């Protein structure tokens, strides 16, 4: 059961992040901070298919993490889900076509190892 929960944290979380990132690039930055501008931005988000699919994926990942934290130790849950850093960076490079140079790859790998050490 715990490995199913790990998969339910990592895979929907990665899919959700990639879709949210694509959706927000498509949406563009919020530049009008008036009530009218905020409402218009929110309305546009509700019609953004990337976000509409990404949001439930993130919610599924979140609830799976809640269940995982309740049933296993932090020392298991955090290292098991830290793999999502590497997976998401690879997806960002190949699907979102971000320019992931060696600085970012080393940074991401160091962070993933650091997160694992913090959970030990």
């Amino acid at each position, binding site marked *: 059961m715990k490995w199913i929960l790990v998969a339910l944290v990592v895979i929907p979380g990665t899919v959700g992040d990639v879709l949210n990132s694509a959706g927000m690039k498509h949406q563009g930055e919020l530049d009008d901070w008036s009530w009218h501008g905020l409402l218009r931005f929110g309305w546009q988000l509700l019609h953004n298919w990337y976000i509409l699919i990404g949001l439930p994926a993130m919610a599924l990942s979140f609830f799976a993490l809640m269940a995982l934290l309740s049933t296993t130790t932090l020392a298991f849950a955090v290292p098991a889900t830290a793999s999502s850093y590497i997976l998401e960076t690879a997806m960002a490079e190949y699907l*979102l076509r971000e320019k992931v140079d060696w600085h970012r790859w080393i940074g991401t790998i160091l962070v993933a190892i650091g997160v694992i050490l913090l959970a030990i």
Partner: protein
Amino acid sequence: MQSYHLILKTAAVACVVMATNAFGNYALKLGLSNGAGVRASWAPWQYVRALAHPWVIAGVLLMLGWFISRLMLLSWADLSYVLPVTSFSYVLSAGLGAMLLREDVSLVHWGGISLITLGVAFTIFTRPGTTPPGGNEVP
């Protein structure tokens, strides 16, 4: 050369992302270990019941703030930039645990904190956004 405005905007929103994540996780952990625990199950009522716990409510609201601020950051910054930079929230979480819960920070934990800080330092000086305005279409 990154503009001063872009650096300031990215740093400010990244700080909000990290703070809401660290305090949100702290509140959720308090709630889930104080009577609102969720057993691994497909039954939705357990999750609804957990959401009625005050610490879980606080945690969920903070995580909502984390989600919105992270979406804002992703509107101009790359996912491969946001992931490592905002991971500094793990260091904040460790600090919160040490200060508020009197948890010991072991030598291994210090190693983890150092690696995360080094990883953030490697990434933070790269250009936040490398995709064209509007982004690339996901295949």
